[in-house]
């Protein structure tokens, strides 16, 4: 018994050491190697990819671990983005000023619900609070009534559709199809200054690392174990005295918050947010990277999402129609034939290696990295 406990402890220490090393390497890559080797343009692209990867980290938690196929992350991404964009527009317009597009399409008056975004502090609070609050509200409404699986997926997709349609319809106050763009400064920093662009990249990189750390903690915590239990046997969990709806709401809200922060950083980095970035199509698009990387793993969604964004950028530059075929083919091939994502291949390879090596006596962590393959 004691030997088992020491091996568990040893395992824990070694996995922790691995994690610390991993974070260290990632930090060096993001904070030293990338800025030193990449052009400003490439760095900006990478910053954009990192923002999209934040959405993917949350989806990995909600979908991979929690089994909630959320097809509406664009809503939370978009809410975060639009709240940030409103602030930037108002800040550009100056105190009491009116954003340019409102003069063009609207009454020339700032609607009341724009007003809170004049305050930078309030903006930062709302960027997280509004999407998270919506996720909690929706999650409580839906999960407590045991709407799940396909029904949840369809509802979340309908939410994305409704959100995009609403944005398009309210051109005078949301910029309509054009969205919000033409930002000049970010909390007082000039957005055309390369130094500030680099700063934005660092902020995005830091935020992503923090999110990965948070999700890692959640996955390894008792909550993470419970979340997997809820995913696989929601009803059984009830008989142990848990309310699975609450467990799911927490994961869903965390995913929403991450998408929102990704959206908020996307705005100054990319310079535009429009309904085309938040509707049904981009919302499902967020999933492909997660599926390719390995939905139930920690790093799979991040790496998969960055790889897909990169492929999209380079492919659609050269042949636009090729990208759509490629994306379609990815969805078909990966989900149908490799549901565990590339991570499941890594897991297989690793297992083969350990069975060839003399066993060191330590059992594997009980939720293997490939648990998505059976989901």
């Amino acid at each position, binding site marked *: 018994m004691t030997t088992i406990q020491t091996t568990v402890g040893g395992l824990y220490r070694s996995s922790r050491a691995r994690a610390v090393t991993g974070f260290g390497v990632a930090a060096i890559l993001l904070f030293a190697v990338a800025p030193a080797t990449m052009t400003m343009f490439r760095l900006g692209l990478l910053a954009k990819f990192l923002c999209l990867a934040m959405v993917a980290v949350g989806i990995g938690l909600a979908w991979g671990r929690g089994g909630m*196929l959320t*097809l509406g992350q664009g809503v939370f991404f978009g809410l975060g983005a639009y709240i940030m964009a409103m602030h930037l527009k108002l800040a550009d317009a100056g105190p009491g000023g009116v954003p340019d597009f409102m003069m063009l399409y609207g009454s020339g008056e700032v609607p009341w619900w724009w007003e809170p975004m004049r305050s930078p502090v309030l903006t930062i609070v709302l960027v997280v609070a509004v999407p998270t609050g919506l996720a909690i509200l*929706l999650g409580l*409404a*839906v999960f407590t*009534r*045991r*709407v*799940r*699986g*396909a*029904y949840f*997926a*369809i*509802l979340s*997709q*309908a*939410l994305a*559709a*409704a*959100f995009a*349609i*609403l944005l*398009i*319809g*309210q051109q005078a106050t949301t910029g309509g199809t054009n969205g919000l763009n033409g930002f000049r400064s970010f909390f007082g920093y000039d957005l055309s200054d390369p130094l500030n662009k680099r700063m934005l990249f660092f902020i995005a990189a830091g935020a992503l690392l923090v999110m990965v750390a948070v999700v890692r903690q959640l996955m390894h915590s008792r909550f993470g174990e419970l979340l997997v239990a809820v995913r696989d*046997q929601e*009803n*059984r969990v009830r008989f142990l005295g848990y309310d699975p709806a609450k467990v799911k709401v927490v994961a869903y809200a965390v995913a929403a918050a991450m998408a929102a922060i990704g959206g908020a950083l996307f705005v100054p980095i990319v310079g535009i947010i429009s309904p085309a970035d938040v509707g*049904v*199509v981009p919302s*499902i698009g967020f*999933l*492909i990277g997660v*599926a390719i990387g390995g939905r139930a793993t920690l790093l799979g969604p991040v790496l998969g999402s960055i790889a897909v964004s990169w492929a999209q950028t380079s492919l659609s530059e050269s042949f636009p*129609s090729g990208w*759509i*075929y490629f*994306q*379609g*083919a*990815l*969805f*078909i091939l990966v*989900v*149908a034939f490799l*549901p565990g994502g590339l991570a499941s291949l890594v897991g297989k390879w690793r297992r083969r290696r350990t069975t060839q090596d003399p066993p060191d006596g330590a059992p594997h962590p009980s939720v293997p990295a490939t648990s998505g393959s059976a989901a």
Partner: protein
Amino acid sequence: MDVLFSQLFAGLSLGSVLLLAALGLALTFGQMGVINMAHGEFMMAGAYTAFVVQGIFSSAGVSLLVSLPLGFLVGGVLGLLLEATLIHRMYRRPLDTLLVTWGVALVLQQLARDIFGAPNVDVRAPAWLSGAVDVFGVGIPKTRLFILALAIVCVVALALVLKLTPLGRRIRAVVQNRDLAEASGISTRRTDRLTFFIGSGLAGIAGVALTLLGSVGPTLGTNYIVDAFLVVVAGGIGQIKGTVIAAFALGLLQATIEFSTTASLAKVLVFVVIVIFLQVRPQGLVSVRTRSLA
């Protein structure tokens, strides 16, 4: 009175379009549990079928009447292919079918774009469908009436097939207990294929019908798929009746809200209404009626 009636008809008309789009889904999603996101692209294929057929026949009327069965066939064959190549290996992973068929939808959309070009194309409506009928002093476009009638015909035909034919009995048997049906000698593979064929064929018919209302483009299906799924969800699973009621209820609701606000706000409000509706009646959605907890 006029306003009320024209609102009522607008709702019924919208409902009939939703119903046509959702009817095939009610079969493939409701009865088989497959979430086919390419259903909208099957509609698009049906619509382009009508476009191609009109190039062959000079008479728009003949063209429409030929397009309807041909659209059914095109949609059905696409569905059959999809079932045979991908879906049949994924019956135990319903959520994953959603993503796989989304991939198929992307590919089909792009194919349409490459074959027919990105700009929308138009299909002529036959002369006997142009103009309006005067009902209670309200002019009602004949095309809308035609679609309403077509939706009703499709529902009745589907109900009859499910109720009376051996195929229908097999479908219901497989839906209720797949293993038992198989053990009693029903070929579930064949039944699945046929169900999918009919469901996808209905999408093709819906696509042909939509050409009467507007132009045809590669994203025609995407515009309807979300609403169609909402109809099936709100209507409850495994019941054609529920789908019919939900389609018309949502159509009426949308038309009414649209009348008093804007179309975009109406969409959001309809969504809110559905979520609230699910609070009151989730039974249509989930049935935990088994002893096993799976």
